[in-house]
């Protein structure tokens, strides 16, 4: 369902969406013709499994909708950086995806941008609030982009007095690789290799959202066996990600055996991935139309997962009975339900703040409609709630894999998927970290013309600072771990 709106009608439509109890999902821009730019807004309405889209040509001044839907703030800044569209009345009209110093004559997504031109690498300081003033009570601690240990690159600015953090400002997008433009000109099948490499630990979720977008554009019907196996793969991915999460969370609360146990269980899960698919990241299987080859999980996978499940249950019981661990999690990094909704939190983060939303149940895909996933929700909004949601999700993932494997019957795993020229579609999946969207547009030769990726970490990085302002340094690492963020998916 797509509606064409004039720029002056956008604000009214955005307010109506609020009143209808709907939810804005994302916004992006693309060029239907080399000289014609179009904005897209993707929204969900309660009770509807399909998403609706607004189209808008930025002929006149486009108003910023960040005052009505605060989560749109980052999407608008991204569009300004990459396409050059200005949004009137934006509350933070600053660079986001491209760093200060990376100015070019035309923005990188402009059709006139020379394909081989690399952004200048000169570094400029980002704009920061004027807090560390002459009084000198407020200190500024810059941390990153190269951080301790093996971590992804990102820069974090702390304004603090003693132990107390007054203001926290992350600077991301050091890892921006311009991946969305890399899709342009590829065939539908080739695109999946890229999708698997946007966020390594979300390979399946990305490939799945991409494939489902292409399949919708092509009107392709994926065989039942492939749908069930896709659920198995997606839940195996959730499993190793969530196990990693607990190992890292225990690391931040200095629970040494807990850290070792979580990381060991993650390793065992990755070794199961290898045995099932040949890849520790479950790659090289998904393809538009189904799977590249059949898998054989029957007779061993469920029993091996049961053994892992038993170990996880003991591990979870230990964590939940350790006061020193719980003391650090409870009331730490509290995210209010209203802030979570307004700023666009997603996945276990929003479900830990009492928002009952999961694409697997609300907008079913693959075989989830038949498998009735149970969605875990907690109301406290603190680090402990986010951890408890993930604990319940591990249990449910194992249950979903068991139910999917039980239903497997022989049959093909790949159907034809012929993309029609000039078609477009939206695909989505609930990744281990939350909602993931792919919008794909094809050109007149059925090659990819534009791919927009909305990763869950793009949403949650936007939210995260709201739980850091006005807290203290000792809680920071625990809070960050409790969000379970990745940077690669956000930066793209």
């Amino acid at each position: 369902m797509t509606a064409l709106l004039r720029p002056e009608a956008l604000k009214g439509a955005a307010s109506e969406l609020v009143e209808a109890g709907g939810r804005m999902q994302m916004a992006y821009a693309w060029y239907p013709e080399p000289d014609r730019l179009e904005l897209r807004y993707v929204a969900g309405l309660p009770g509807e499994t399909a998403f609706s889209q607004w189209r808008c040509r930025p002929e006149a001044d486009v108003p910023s909708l960040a005052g009505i839907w605060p989560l749109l703030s980052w999407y608008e800044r991204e569009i300004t950086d990459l396409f050059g569209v200005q949004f009137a009345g934006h509350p933070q009209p600053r660079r986001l995806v491209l760093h200060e110093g990376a100015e070019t004559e035309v923005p990188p997504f402009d059709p006139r941008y020379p394909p081989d031109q690399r952004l200048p690498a000169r570094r400029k300081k980002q704009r920061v609030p004027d807090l560390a003033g002459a009084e000198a009570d407020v200190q500024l601690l810059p941390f990153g982009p190269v951080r301790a240990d093996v971590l992804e690159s990102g820069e974090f600015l702390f304004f603090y007095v003693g132990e107390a953090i007054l203001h926290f400002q992350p600077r991301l997008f050091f890892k921006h690789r311009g991946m969305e433009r890399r899709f342009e000109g590829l065939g539908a099948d080739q695109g999946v290799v890229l999708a698997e490499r946007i966020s390594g630990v979300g390979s399946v979720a990305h490939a799945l959202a991409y494939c489902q977008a292409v399949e919708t554009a092509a009107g392709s019907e994926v065989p039942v066996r492939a749908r069930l196996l896709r659920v198995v793969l997606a839940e195996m991915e959730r499993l190793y990600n969530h196990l990693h999460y607990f190992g890292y969370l225990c690391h931040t609360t200095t629970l040494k055996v807990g850290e070792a146990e979580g990381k060991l269980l993650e390793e065992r899960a990755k070794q199961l991935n290898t045995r099932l698919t040949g890849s520790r990241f479950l790659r090289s299987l998904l393809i538009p139309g189904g799977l590249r080859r059949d898998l054989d999980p029957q007779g061993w996978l469920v029993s091996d997962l049961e053994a892992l499940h038993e170990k996880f249950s003991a591990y979870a019981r230990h964590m939940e009975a350790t006061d020193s661990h719980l003391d650090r999690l409870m009331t730490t990094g509290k995210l209010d339900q209203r802030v979570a909704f307004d700023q666009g939190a997603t996945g276990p983060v929003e479900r830990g703040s009492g928002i009952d939303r999961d694409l697997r149940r609300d907008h079913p895909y693959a075989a989830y409609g038949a498998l009735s996933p149970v969605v875990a929700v907690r109301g406290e909004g603190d680090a402990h709630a986010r951890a408890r949601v993930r604990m319940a999700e591990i249990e449910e993932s194992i249950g979903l894999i068991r139910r999917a494997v039980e239903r497997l019957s022989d049959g093909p795993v790949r159907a034809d998927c012929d993309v029609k020229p000039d078609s477009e579609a939206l695909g989505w999946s609930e990744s281990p970290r939350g909602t993931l969207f792919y919008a794909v547009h094809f050109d007149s030769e059925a090659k990819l013309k534009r791919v927009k990726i909305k990763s869950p970490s793009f949403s949650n990085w936007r939210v995260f600072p709201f739980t850091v302002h006005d807290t203290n340094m000792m809680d920071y690492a625990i809070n960050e771990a409790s969000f379970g963020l990745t940077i690669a998916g956000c930066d793209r």
Partner: protein
Amino acid sequence: MPQWTLLGLLQGKQTAPWPLRQGDDGQRGFIGMPRYHPELCEEDCKACADACPTKAITMREGGKDRLDIDYGRCIVCQLCTEACPSGAMAASGDWAFGVRQRQDLVWREGGEAASAETVGQPGFRRSLHVRHVDAGSCNGCESELQALNNAFYNLHRLGIFFTASPRAADLLLVTGPVTYAMLEPLRATFEAMAEPRWVMAIGTCAVSGGIAEDGYASGHGLEGVLPVDVYLPGCPPNPAAIIEALLMFLNRTPQRVKGGRYGE
């Protein structure tokens, strides 16, 4: 009352005996880089080169003898093995691809002896300290680097440690294609290391740019950015491959791949 100590003890020893002794390296079922069997290759076929998304396989004019495979560009996507009609480009379990010279990753007809025998770095008799920099990876390589310190691989027992400060590091591990924004922080980290210092490119992105090469924000890996002492392609290389490459750097295990050929 939680019994963490008991929970740990009841697990028994979880660390793999490999690589110090024969035993499980944790990679059962792993599908690695494709292996080329020229005797099966058909004339006038270039299905593998057409299927390769990173131009790791290229065909010069004049038939099958003109096939070049650059494993430094391979992202292990298996599209060539699926496209090959004759089984010449076959899926394999080859993963130990750490090499000292870039040309050892290139398969060419008659190129078996591509590299002169290189004696490696001055042997470290004691511990090795490494520092990692993410120069724009997809987080797959980080996931595997983080796995090195889990109980199964337990990198510490081999005398290899991650260090927080580049000043304390002997070896820099770089992942990612080197984005425009990470170019300067990467160079600054390298400059902060005391000499002698070494660099290892981890993953195909760091070796050549991989799938993320070119475009407005991405680079070609470490080529022309830093001097590289060990190249380890893979997408991502598994933890065992990283351990083998580190041990090879330390002259504690031989280099497996020469002239693009995988030695047993």
